[in-house]
């Protein structure tokens, strides 16, 4: 019954999406009938309500383990812990698409209820674009991915969730990315709305900015958490693999980062109009391209999502309609958008343009690297593209970008003088140059990229705090703090990447119980290996004692786990965190002589990578709160003045 209710609500919400976009078009066309346009807002709210309840129905079906529903059978099991029953609702293709469209509709309701900054016609056009966008995903759900499909006869129990995904972090990893993607789709709708009404200006930029910021924070968190998950769950000790799915989340992030900076230029200085609109379209395209690459199965990846060429074709068709349509609209309309304000070659705007340029180049590098295997296959070649291409190509541009990142905030808007900028940058530049020399002397064998990376991190770290120099810290606006924290986070993450890749130590040994081995500054003793039983798995677990010098020993428990439904072996790495890095241990197989294979890593400063990632996200959050708060206050004072 609940499944039918959910499906019925899904159809009704789809109907409302048609009405929402239809009314929007009519309202824009027949300007003498304002009631048409006025009806768009309540319809958007109602659509969000219906689809929200529909998604709640799906969660309910997973909570009660209704095994007559195909999706529950395929992705859940009555023995599974409750958290994973709930997260099972979106840990699959159909459920995640339903979540996607539900969040999209709720965002639309948010715009309908709260947006007061943009012109009325722009708002209607934006909601119309939102309705059209939602419609595509409703069609996708209803015609090719029905989450409420029944299974007759109902089986005894479900087929479980991929045990690799049975992890608290991962229960919330996909929704985080989805919130990010949806935020990008709101920015896209705004861009389409503003193009339709030729209203590309600061008001539009200010309305779009919180969505871009919020989406960007979510994408940053999603990528950071995903990277940590891969690090401890896959047991390879690496934190970024240039896997197609990782790239699929990195590409929208790169575009969103560029958009975030250009939207600020548009909001503050009314410059970069066409470019901002373009980036909004690109950022959304990249999130759809990402979804497509993951779901169509055209690229091999560790993230084996349900692969289905029909679904891939559907997403491709949606892309053709939405992105093709938006780009055609762009080509037709952007010529009629007035040129924005001008600026000098040495100015904050110019630094931000340079930032956008570098980000776009990195985006291109990642996109080409990700798609090249498909192209090569078209010419009959099997290739796989990995770190040897991505690291130098993306890394070298990223380093230049980070130097510009340190300099940009120290420049004035509109026009500045080069000598003055250099004077403000003197200390960071000096630190960067000195560290180049010192690091080379202390570690002559360090690779070129880590060497430059570490020095750039020190330059950017000091450079990003410089905007606070001689300011009253309590009076510094929250969004300036946000920028400082985010930029500092980039420097911290970069330092972690450079130090880890240059100085990590790896040991692969076979030891018997009671034996001791060395890795980096640690001596690690294998105390015992014993079988243990978990809620839905069995494992052999090693007990190890790690000791640095004469210090207190810490205990590690790496496991080789075996899940029963479906039968899967996983490796649970044991990690201890120290102030200057992490010790990482993986338990391997037992040899015929009774010795156990151990893989040990000492990873100096590796935690800085994710610490930096969270700082970047925190900075985005501070900026978001700061902006919203200031605009609320601004609006109130306007109301008082009026």
């Amino acid at each position, binding site marked *: 019954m609940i499944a039918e209710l959910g499906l019925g609500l899904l159809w009704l919400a789809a109907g409302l999406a048609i009405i929402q976009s239809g009314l929007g078009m009519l309202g824009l066309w027949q300007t003498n009938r304002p009631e048409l346009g006025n009806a768009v807002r309540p319809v958007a709210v109602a659509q969000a309500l219906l689809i929200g309840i529909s998604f709640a129905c799906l969660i309910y079906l997973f909570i009660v383990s209704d095994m007559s529903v195909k999706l529950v059978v395929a992705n859940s099991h009555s023995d599974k812990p409750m958290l994973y029953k709930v997260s099972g609702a979106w840990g699959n293709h159909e459920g995640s698409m339903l979540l996607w469209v539900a969040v999209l509709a709720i965002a639309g309701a948010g715009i309908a209820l709260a947006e007061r900054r943009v012109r009325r016609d722009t708002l209607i056009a934006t909601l119309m674009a939102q309705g059209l966008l939602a419609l595509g995903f409703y069609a996708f759900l209803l015609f090719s991915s029905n989450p409420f499909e029944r299974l007759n006869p109902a089986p005894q129990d479900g087929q479980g969730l991929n045990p690799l995904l049975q992890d608290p972090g991962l229960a919330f990893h996909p929704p985080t990315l989805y919130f990010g993607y949806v935020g990008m789709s709101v920015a896209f709708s705004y861009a389409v709305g503003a193009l339709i009404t030729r209203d590309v200006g600061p008001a539009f930029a200010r309305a779009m900015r919180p969505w871009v910021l919020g989406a960007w924070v979510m994408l940053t968190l999603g990528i950071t958490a995903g990277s940590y998950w891969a690090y401890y769950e896959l047991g390879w000790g690496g934190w970024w693999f240039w896997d197609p799915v990782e790239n699929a989340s990195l590409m929208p992030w790169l575009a969103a980062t560029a958009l975030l900076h250009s939207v600020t230029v548009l909001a503050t200085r009314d410059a970069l109009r066409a470019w901002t609109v373009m980036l909004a379209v690109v950022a959304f395209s990249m999130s759809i391209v990402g979804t497509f690459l993951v779901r169509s199965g*055209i*690229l*091999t990846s560790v993230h084996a999502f349900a692969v289905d060429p029909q679904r891939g074709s559907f997403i*491709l068709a949606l892309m053709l309609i939405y992105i093709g349509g938006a780009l055609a609209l762009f*080509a037709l309309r952007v010529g009629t958008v007035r040129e924005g304000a001008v600026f000098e070659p040495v100015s904050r705007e110019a630094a931000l343009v340079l930032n956008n340029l570098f980000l776009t180049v990195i985006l291109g590098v990642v996109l080409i690297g990700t*798609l090249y295997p498909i192209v090569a296959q078209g010419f009959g070649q*099997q290739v796989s593209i990995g770190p040897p291409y991505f690291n130098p190509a993306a890394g070298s541009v990223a380093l230049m970008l980070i130097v510009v990142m340190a300099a940009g905030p120290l420049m004035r808007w509109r026009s500045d003088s080069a000598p003055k900028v250099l004077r403000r940058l003197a200390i960071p530049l000096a630190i960067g140059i000195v560290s180049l020399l010192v690091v080379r002397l202390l570690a002559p064998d360090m690779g070129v990229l880590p060497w430059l990376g570490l020095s750039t991190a020190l330059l950017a770290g000091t450079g990003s705090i410089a905007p606070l120099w001689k300011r009253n810290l309590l009076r510094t606006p929250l969004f300036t703090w946000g920028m400082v924290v985010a930029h500092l986070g980039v420097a911290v993450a970069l330092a972690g990447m450079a130090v880890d890749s240059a100085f990590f130590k790896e040991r692969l040994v076979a030891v018997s119980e009671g034996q001791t081995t060395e890795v980096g500054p640690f001596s690690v003793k294998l105390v015992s290996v014993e079988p243990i039983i978990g809620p839905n798995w069995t494992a052999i677990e090693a007990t190890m004692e790690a000791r640095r010098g004469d210090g207190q020993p810490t205990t590690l428990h790496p496991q080789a786990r075996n899940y029963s439904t479906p039968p899967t072996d996983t490796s649970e790495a044991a990690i201890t965190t120290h102030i200057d890095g992490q010790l990482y241990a993986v338990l391997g197989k037992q040899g015929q002589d009774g010795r156990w294979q151990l893989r040990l890593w000492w990873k100096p400063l590796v935690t800085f990578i994710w610490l930096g990632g969270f700082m970047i996200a925190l900075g985005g959050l501070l900026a978001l709160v700061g902006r919203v708060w200031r605009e609320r206050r601004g609006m109130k004072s306007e109301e008082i003045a009026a």
Partner: protein
Amino acid sequence: MRKVLLWLPLALFGLLLGIMGHGILNPEQTTVPSRLIGTKVPQFDLPAAVPSHAALKSSDLASGKPILLNIFASWCLPCITEAPILEELKAKGVTIHAIAIRDKPEDVARFLSDHGDPYASIGSDVSSRVQISLGSSGVPESFVIDGKGIIRHQHIGDIKVEDVPKILKALEEAR
């Protein structure tokens, strides 16, 4: 000029769509054939996996007539579905040698008594070293090897009923 440039993003997007559409229509080949097809079997000398069967070394495979080399394991589920097909091949006069991967003698013995025993000899490859040197990436896999010990054909995955004529043909061609 500017008017033309404005259409450039759409053109680039069209290219992107084209690439992805092509990718959809031509699914990626996920199995990678061994590079050793057409070359001699690499040198190896494996101990017997069970006392009841002979051990296996590479020179045994160059026996003057084509044979089938089956790579299997007692812990491998598709190997169970494959077992009756191998029996059928043996009944048709095919000599089948085997390599058991990461296995224990008692498990192999149980596998043979439960699911049938078409094997002339079974080598034990505890570390997968020989498997890797053959260019095999999983179990089960089978190689057709001619009388001179040259690999002629590789079958990845379990041999199904419909694959039997293909295997027999490869054996015939290796003669």
